[in-house]
């Protein structure tokens, strides 16, 4: 057991750090923080120097590096306050799916451009009638005589769809088999005729996600990912990658425990001794929980570095991380005193108010906490699954049963 960098890791960290310091003004310029073109340029700059897609195979445009090297890049980016890669969904979920299930031609066409943010990607899974029960989705794909597919239906909660150039799209190609067996995955051109993305405003006021409509959109058969009817297996590749990118590898959810500590430390002195003791008790609990999540993530990272695959236990990181992040954000808002009732302070600061409004969504996006508990309970602890009313029937029959 050793928490220090190995000599190789230390050299890598120094190389990363030197590069980030050199380009700090470009990478963390507050003026262009929310500018899409600037965000694409930031990602391209990082990619061109080998700091995006570190763990991706070289053949896929990546560096062929280790999860630990990627973690070091993430840590160093967090250290300078980097606002995040714009193509996060593409890198974390879509790309890994194309790497495993795409044709050589698809890999050639998409992956390098994805890593450089020349194309932005989104993941089109959830629908108005199928969220946690993803396999109950209804978006229909029907094969035409020329082999191409015609898509109609609606997706929702699709992060970045309004900016995206491509998406991975899970569809129903056969309603007359059990729901998991009738699905097929495609790459869809988000600029194709018939695709409409409409931003949805979230409770935090932001609008990063969308509803997406498909009205007779045509997709060539060469854009299929995996076999017809194998869409569920393909989607599991995506979801496995998603677990890691959401809190599984020790990365923090929310504004971060160190930011919360600094915020509280600066304001605690103004409060009564009684109040300080109460704050410390709550903060201590949230802090221990954050440390527990961080070090559990490090254990996972060590296992991955030795060749293990991210298993269902990685879901525990997201589950525990969202709980701790909410405790921290709540304490930070309370520390604002009389200004805690406003959405921003008189100085225009709103980090913790925004965090407060954003975190309820984190306990839902990428698997609700309840679904994650089911996954851990059934696949890690080996507890029996909940009986399903739609087991042993075709998708069409289950629709009829539920009266929809």
């Amino acid at each position, binding site marked *: 057991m050793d*928490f220090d960098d190995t000599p190789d890791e230390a050299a890598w960290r120094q190389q990363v750090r030197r590069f980030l310091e050199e380009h700090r003004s470009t990478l963390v310029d507050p003026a262009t923080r929310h500018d899409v073109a600037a965000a694409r340029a930031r990602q391209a700059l990082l990619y061109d120097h080998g700091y995006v897609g570190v763990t991706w195979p070289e053949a896929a445009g990546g560096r062929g590096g280790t999860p630990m090297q990627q973690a070091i890049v993430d840590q160093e980016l967090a250290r300078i306050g980097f606002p995040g890669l714009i193509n996060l969904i593409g890198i974390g979920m879509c790309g890994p799916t194309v790497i495993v299930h795409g044709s050589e031609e698809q890999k050639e066409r998409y992956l390098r451009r994805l890593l450089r943010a020349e194309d932005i990607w989104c993941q089109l899974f959830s629908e108005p009638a199928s969220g946690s029960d993803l396999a109950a989705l209804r978006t229909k794909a029907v094969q035409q005589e020329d082999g191409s597919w015609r898509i109609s239906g609606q997706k929702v909660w699709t992060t970045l769809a309004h900016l995206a150039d491509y998406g991975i799209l899970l569809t129903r190609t056969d309603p007359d088999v059990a729901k998991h067996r009738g699905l097929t995955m495609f790459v869809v051109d988000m600029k194709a005729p018939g695709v409409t993305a409409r931003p949805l405003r979230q409770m935090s006021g932001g609008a990063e996600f969308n509803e997406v409509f498909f009205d007779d959109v045509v997709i060539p058969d060469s854009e299929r990912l995996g076999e017809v009817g194998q869409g569920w297996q393909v989607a599991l590749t995506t979801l496995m990658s998603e677990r890691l990118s959401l809190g599984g590898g020790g990365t923090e959810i929310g504004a971060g425990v160190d930011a919360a500590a600094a915020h509280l430390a600066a304001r605690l002195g103004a409060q009564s001794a009684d109040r300080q003791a109460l704050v410390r008790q709550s903060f201590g609990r949230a802090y221990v929980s954050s440390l527990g999540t961080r070090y559990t993530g490090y254990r996972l990272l060590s296992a991955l570095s030795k060749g293990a695959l991210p298993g269902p236990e990685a879901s525990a990181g997201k589950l525990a991380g969202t709980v701790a992040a909410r405790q921290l954000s709540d304490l930070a808002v309370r520390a604002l005193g009389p200004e805690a009732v406003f959405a921003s302070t008189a100085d225009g600061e709103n980090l913790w108010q925004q965090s407060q409004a954003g975190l309820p969504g984190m306990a839902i996006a990428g698997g609700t906490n309840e679904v994650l508990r089911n996954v851990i309970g059934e696949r890690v602890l080996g507890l029996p699954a909940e009986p399903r009313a739609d087991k042993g029937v075709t998708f069409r029959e289950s629709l009829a049963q539920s009266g929809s």
Partner: protein
Amino acid sequence: MDFDLSAEQRDLAAAAADFFSSSASPARSRAMLDDRTLAPEPGHAALAGSGFAAITVPESAGGGGGSVLDLAVVAEQAGRVLAGPSLVTAARVAVLLAGDDAGLAELASGERRFAVVDDGAATLDAVGADTFLALAGDRLVRAEGVVTPGDPIDATRGLGMVALGEQRVIAEDVALRWRHAERVARVVLAAEDLGTAGRAVEIGVAYAQQRHAFGRAIGSYQAVKHALVDAYVEVEQLRSLVWWAAWAADEAPEELPLASAAAKAQAATALERAAETLIQVHGGIGFTWEHDAHLYWRRAKVDRFLLGDDVAAYDEVARLALDAASAPAREAVPQG
């Protein structure tokens, strides 16, 4: 970074599991409540004979010359079967007697039965002890003592109030050493609790798989399943904090204050949750005297108060984190 046990440590854990599972069982914890003359299992002599209690004692004094992490790996196995006396006591005494090879040899051989006395608190493993270590000002004293056992919640902990008799100063200026010993002891306590809590979750899961209600296994109901998952997640977080804190005790003393307080706090929280979930999942049988569930619960209700309670440990974590956050940025300027 490599945050994992070594192959040798896995072997050590397997050997410890063999020893403790064949020489101790939770049934003894129940029997001790009914018969105050019984000692815990495996008991002082067998534990000394196993060599596990002396893992952190230097080889020159007849110990194993191992690390705190080695001892933590063993302590987890002891915790699974509610073993006694506690490895916490051995670990703490080994730190306090550093440099006193004669004293360490008495610990390693089992010739003396040590306990460490904190002012105003009940003493762990006091019952049956013959040699007491205590802090007098900033001096370490070795003393005889008279033990008054309390009415036990968990008799395996051997808790009692100690009135010190004749004392001998055996080291001066030990304030720092005393603090360090307490921190190492907290790590080993958290490691024992990790074993106890992990075992409690296992028993709860096994029962939820097997017990049926309304025509299905109760573990298929989300209300039961999610309670067990929450307990499991707490246990895995505890495992990470115990390993980190044990590593810090061996390799990174500057991280030990935070790590040991965090491990102690999480141990109290995780074990209480695991033990209470264990009882709840079992329903009616879960709160009978004959079922083992209350024996794990008893450990939880006692251990949370040992070496300072969880409230104090959370407060310490918060103070350390807030102090670090308000200190001027100490981060090294990037090289190159």
